């Protein structure tokens, strides 16, 4: 027995909730709309849609994001009474609060043509025209005179065009037509294979004509339903329902159409997503770059590498059509840069992305930062990642982001990304093709961890707070870990061991500091650490590490200013720092230069920098004016 489509306990529960919400004085049930996702099967969804017709939309959703209103008319050449309730559910789930008007059976031509029809008076924003083969094909068409059939189809298409064009012009409603599948029953009436081929061609001419209307009429669009149904498992028509009630679509096709029409409606109201944020490991390529190395990742060639190539091609196609691509990955930027520049099999390259958040920070922060850098809302973002943890984090922290969990067989990743039509728009333009380039020019400074200059006006709005604290038992392991994991902002490109750090933390002649960063969006937690040896005539920074996720905000200057204050307060004339130049830690060296340190000595691979503190430092003012240093005196002064 097939249990598919059964509402089940969850479904029953949801239907009960809808019934409660329908009561005149019902309390709001703001998670009900989200819960509708658990309903499956045309029957349960149609029931939900019928019940929801009498529930005010604002009762079943959270206050934000607000649903978009849309007046939708449904008119067909056949009985389509099940479509409106299915449509209502799909529209609500797509973020649209519809007002739906339905015309009676086979009313399409009359309702479109009459300027005073109920359809015209409804003043729809969107009119869905449902067509079936017999609205074009005469009842007793002659399989031996297909040329005559061709003419009839042409005439009826022209009549539909006139009616639709006149209606669109009078009402300014967007009209959605669709290509019409020829039912197998009609097709089989022709027995000669030549004739079957000709009928197929004639039928495609009709569908081509329908598609052409989308080009020639400004408000008219045509859904290619014939193509959409290619991978649809159920028959288009249930002949019992067709003969008995003139229902030309089986319930599963009604549902499929409702889904597609809702996607179209989303494009109509401008709810298309604009940015695709992609993970790298096991998303853009197979394997983990940090573990498998640049030559070990799977991309290109045969399965499964070709699946990742296809995902990259699909993302590239989105980019060409105006969708912005961004990277959000836990990785080292330099390794990623290397792969994006040199891996021979990649389709996407660095300049395909408008932002790269490649670091070890929280992905919700990175996604928010990407949105901020592009100056778009997080509700424009689709986030695709193979990790359930990251997907759940984004769903929880940024519910407006649409999350695509790319789980399981990579062959399924492209369908998972594209099938919901999240990026679908009515038309794309030449501007869309240029969009990535324009945004790249505008947002160069937001290429994460690649630029260390700070934009003061942007930063001053952040309300940045930095707290510098001596290591304690709780923070110490995290500080040691940061030392190990930090490559770019790490003065000596190496880490103090846990034992050494612990010894320094408890020694009166040393200082181990951790620092935390917070801004108006939340707290980053501990993001860096400093190891200092306190000598009588100078303090020496043995290492200074900072997570790249807080780069470019002046945090390091603020921390340094706290150390300078501590040293100067202790009457020490010089603050020194050790730097070991390496391939990846140039940012740390640039920091010393920028802060006024001068090269004092060089021994082997190590460079000794000094910052004179007495008389009063000639160095630039260290503490950026957009940062509040919290409790500085109390802590560093140990």
């Amino acid at each position: 027995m097939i249990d598919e489509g059964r509402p089940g306990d969850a479904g029953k529960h949801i239907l009960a909730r809808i019934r409660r919400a329908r009561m005149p004085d019902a309390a709001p049930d703001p998670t009900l709309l989200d819960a509708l996702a658990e309903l499956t099967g045309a029957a349960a969804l149609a029931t939900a849609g019928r019940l929801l017709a009498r529930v005010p939309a604002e009762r079943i959703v959270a206050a934000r994001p607000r649903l978009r209103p849309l007046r939708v008319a449904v008119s067909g050449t056949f009985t389509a009474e099940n479509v409106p309730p299915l449509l209502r559910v799909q529209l609500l789930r797509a973020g649209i609060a519809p007002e739906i008007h339905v015309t009676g059976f086979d009313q399409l031509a009359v309702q479109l043509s009459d300027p005073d029809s109920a359809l015209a008076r409804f003043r729809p924003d969107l009119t869905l025209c449902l067509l079936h083969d017999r609205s074009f094909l005469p009842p007793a068409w002659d399989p031996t005179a297909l040329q005559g059939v061709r003419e009839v189809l042409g005439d009826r298409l022209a009549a539909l065009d006139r009616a639709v064009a006149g209606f669109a012009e009078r009402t300014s409603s967007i009209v959605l037509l669709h290509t019409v599948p020829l039912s197998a029953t009609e097709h089989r009436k022709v027995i000669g294979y030549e004739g079957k081929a000709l009928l197929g061609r004639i039928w495609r001419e009709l569908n081509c004509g329908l598609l052409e209307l989308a080009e020639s009429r400004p408000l008219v669009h045509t859904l290619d339903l014939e193509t959409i149904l290619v991978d649809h498992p159920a028959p288009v028509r249930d002949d019992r329902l067709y003969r008995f009630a003139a229902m030309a679509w089986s319930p599963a096709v009604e549902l499929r159409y409702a889904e597609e029409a809702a996607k179209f409606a989303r494009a109509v109201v401008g709810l298309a997503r604009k940015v695709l944020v992609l993970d790298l490991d096991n998303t853009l390529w197979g394997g983990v770059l940090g573990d498998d190395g640049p030559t070990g990742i799977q991309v290109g060639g045969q399965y499964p590498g070709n699946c990742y190539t296809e995902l990259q091609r699909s993302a590239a196609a989105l980019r060409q059509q105006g969708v912005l691509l961004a990277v959000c990955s836990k990785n080292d930027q330099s390794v990623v840069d290397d792969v994006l520049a040199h891996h021979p099999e990649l389709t996407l390259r660095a300049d395909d992305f408008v932002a790269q958040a490649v670091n070890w920070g929280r992905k919700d922060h990175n996604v928010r930062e990407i949105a901020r850098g592009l100056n778009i809302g997080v509700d424009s973002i689709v986030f695709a990642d193979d990790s359930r943890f990251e997907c759940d984090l984004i769903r929880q922290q940024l519910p407006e982001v649409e999350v695509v969990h790319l789980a399981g067989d990579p062959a399924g990743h492209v369908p998972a990304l594209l099938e919901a039509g999240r990026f679908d728009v009515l038309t794309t333009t030449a501007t869309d093709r240029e969009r990535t380039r324009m945004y790249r020019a505008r947002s160069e400074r937001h290429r994460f961890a690649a630029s260390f200059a700070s934009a003061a006006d942007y930063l001053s709005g952040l309300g940045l707070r930095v707290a510098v604290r001596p290591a304690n038992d709780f923070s110490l392991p995290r500080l040691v870990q940061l030392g190990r994991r930090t490559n770019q902002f790490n003065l000596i490109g190496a880490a103090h061991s846990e034992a050494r750090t612990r010894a320094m933390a408890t020694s009166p002649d040393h200082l181990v500091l951790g620092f935390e960063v917070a801004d108006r969006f939340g707290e980053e937690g501990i993001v860096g650490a400093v190891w200092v040896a306190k000598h009588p005539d100078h303090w020496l920074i043995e290492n200074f590490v900072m997570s790249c996720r807080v780069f470019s905000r002046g945090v390091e200057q603020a921390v340094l200013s706290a150390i300078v204050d501590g040293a100067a307060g202790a009457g020490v004339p010089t603050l020194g720092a050790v730097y070991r130049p390496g391939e990846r830690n140039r940012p740390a060296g640039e920091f010393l230069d920028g802060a006024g340190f001068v090269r004092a000595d060089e021994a082997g691979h190590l460079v000794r920098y000094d910052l004179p503190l007495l008389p009063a430092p000639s160095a630039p003012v260290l503490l950026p004016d957009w940062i509040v240093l919290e409790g500085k005196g109390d802590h560093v002064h140990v």
Partner: protein
Amino acid sequence: MSMSDVFAAVAELVEEVTDVPVDEIEAASRFESLDNWTSLAALQLLTAVEERFGVRLDLRAYFATTRVGDLVSMIAEDAHAR
């Protein structure tokens, strides 16, 4: 699936389609006396039953059933015949 399970499931579907509470639906309930019973509701019940039980019913026989219990027997027979 026992007859009473089939009945319980059918009663739920009838409730879904007609919005008549499930505890008011009995094997002896006549379809035509249910609130909101229309030919459209009848077809919705048909497709819901077929989806739920994986059966395919003869429309003539289906429309000849007058009581919920008759439909339950018909489903059980069809499922049994498969």
